[in-house]
């Protein structure tokens, strides 16, 4: 419905085409660059495991919703509690999977999700009144512990800097799976992460102690003592008295020669 002379209309269309035409290649290149940066930031440079890629298969649906990805994940997460109350473990597992797929870099989903499975589901299953066979109950309990552990481990792939995931994995090995060496490893990793609480640094040695591996425990205590600076040793949270007493005890037990002892006296 325009009344403009053709010359003006043509010039206008040409100008628009020029602006957009010049912008298009820059735009695409820039977007590719941004996407590459974001992939690195989101997935921490880790190669996408096949499992992750499968979970994200519903690409288009998530793409459309991705404007509010985190809120969708939160709303789904609210149902995890309901599923637990209804004791529908498999549904709960599926929901946890979905949340972690939507936001793999939200550590809280892996952490609480793993906890729900390895602890709540597992304990409930091993005490399931509907299952008369004790062996089967124990087997079911173990099934959920494994599922929870799997969630923790996948969570660690995506969030290797989150201390609590390492710590909770360690706790699972310690308390449910009774694998103290693994627990020690995971506690050690946890203690090295940013913002980790100081008490975790003592746990590996304690785990070795629980495992009965005195030599490993001694090595661990000694390494910790040597790692702390004199200033740090005086700080309350590093609890130097505890470290010292353990080292002394183990040096005695292992009959370490006096010249090699940390505390010769």
């Amino acid at each position, binding site marked *: 419905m*325009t*009344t*403009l002379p053709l010359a*003006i*209309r043509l010039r*206008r269309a040409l*100008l*628009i085409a020029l*602006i*957009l035409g010049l*912008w*298009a290649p*820059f*735009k*695409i290149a*820039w*977007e*590719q*660059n*941004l*996407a590459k*940066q*974001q992939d690195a*930031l*989101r997935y921490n440079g880790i190669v996408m495991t096949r499992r992750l890629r499968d979970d994200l298969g519903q*690409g*288009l649906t998530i*793409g*459309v919703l*991705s*404007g*509010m*990805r*985190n*809120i969708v994940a*939160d709303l789904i*997460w*609210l149902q*995890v*509690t309901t599923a637990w109350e209804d004791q529908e473990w498999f549904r709960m597992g599926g929901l946890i999977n979905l949340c972690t797929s939507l*936001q793999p*870099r*939200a*550590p*809280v989903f892996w*952490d*609480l999700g793993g*906890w*729900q499975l390895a602890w709540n589901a597992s304990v409930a299953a091993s005490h399931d009144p509907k299952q008369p066979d004790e062996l089967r109950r124990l087997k079911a309990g173990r099934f959920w512990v494994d599922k929870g552990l799997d969630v923790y481990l996948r969570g660690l792939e995506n969030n290797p800097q989150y201390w*609590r995931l390492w710590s909770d994995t360690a706790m699972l090995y310690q308390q449910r799976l009774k694998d103290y060496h693994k627990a020690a490893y995971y506690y050690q990793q946890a203690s090295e992460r940013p*913002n980790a*609480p*100081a*008490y975790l640094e003592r746990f590996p040695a304690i785990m070795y102690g629980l495992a009965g591996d005195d030599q490993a425990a001694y090595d661990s205590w000694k390494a910790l003592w040597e790692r702390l600076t004199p200033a740090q040793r005086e700080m*309350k*949270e590093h*609890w130097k008295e505890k470290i010292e007493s353990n080292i002394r005890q183990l040096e005695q037990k292992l009959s370490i020669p006096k010249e090699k002892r940390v505390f010769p006296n």
Partner: protein
Amino acid sequence: MISSLQRIIVIGRNTLTEAVRQKVLNVLLIFAVVLVSCSVFISQLATPGLDPAGLFDEQIKFVKDFGCGAIGFFGFFIALLSTALLIPQELHNRTIYTILAKPVRRSEFLLGKFFGIILLLALCISLMSLAFVVTLYVQEQVGLGVVDSTYERMGDWKNNPHIVAMHDHDAAIIISQVRDPQLVEAVVLLFAKIVMTAAIALLISTFATSWIFTVITTFMIYLIAHAEGLARTFWLSQGAESTIWQSALVGLISMLIPDMNSFTIVDEILAGNHIPWSHALNLLAYANIYVIVLLAVSIVIFDYREI
């Protein structure tokens, strides 16, 4: 040049005054502020039976997600509606005649109106962010209270320095999550996203015949823009099986529609992951240039629009 800028600023400030003196906007804003504050209550639907520190990771995430979600949501609608009505109102009331009879270029008029929208959006985002900060602070205090009361149950814990250390660590986690300076980055990115939305709406409105058309079209472009990344990767790596029409459509989307999905990096910030400012600035620069391109096209269209 300077007088041109002055005219743009004058029109911009007038546009802001108009929006602020309109009651409708104030109602919307109050609603938004209330909703941001309500995110506290949604967070109460959290997982029971956990130790407090773990619990609060979850609750704080909820408050951040819903708070920023509300800001993004309302910001989007305020941007969309106020921009869609910008030109139609001037045409309908014919106030544009009086202005263009003055020594004002059409481009200055358009840029001035858009500048007013930017000011308006900045104001709205600031107010909503303030509500968000207050909500977070409330959540922080609640969290710290829960941590304190949990340790209280252990009896005389304050004399045991190791327990004190644990308590302080738990409290520090909550505080660091709430007082995350990265949240500023998140809000700035949200602002950039809604300014881009406004620029798209402005472009559509320069040739649209009704504001409803502008709203619907911009909304659809907004949705498609979230899938643009997928379209682009598909187009750039297409196999032989795509038809010429598929290829053309996907190509067109890749070349014209912005990648709004890149703004969902805000999710990562809200989840507590560090996104360096270098990336945020990269994204902001992209949004900036894109808006300039959209404005340039808008000016070309509007320069010869019949009024």
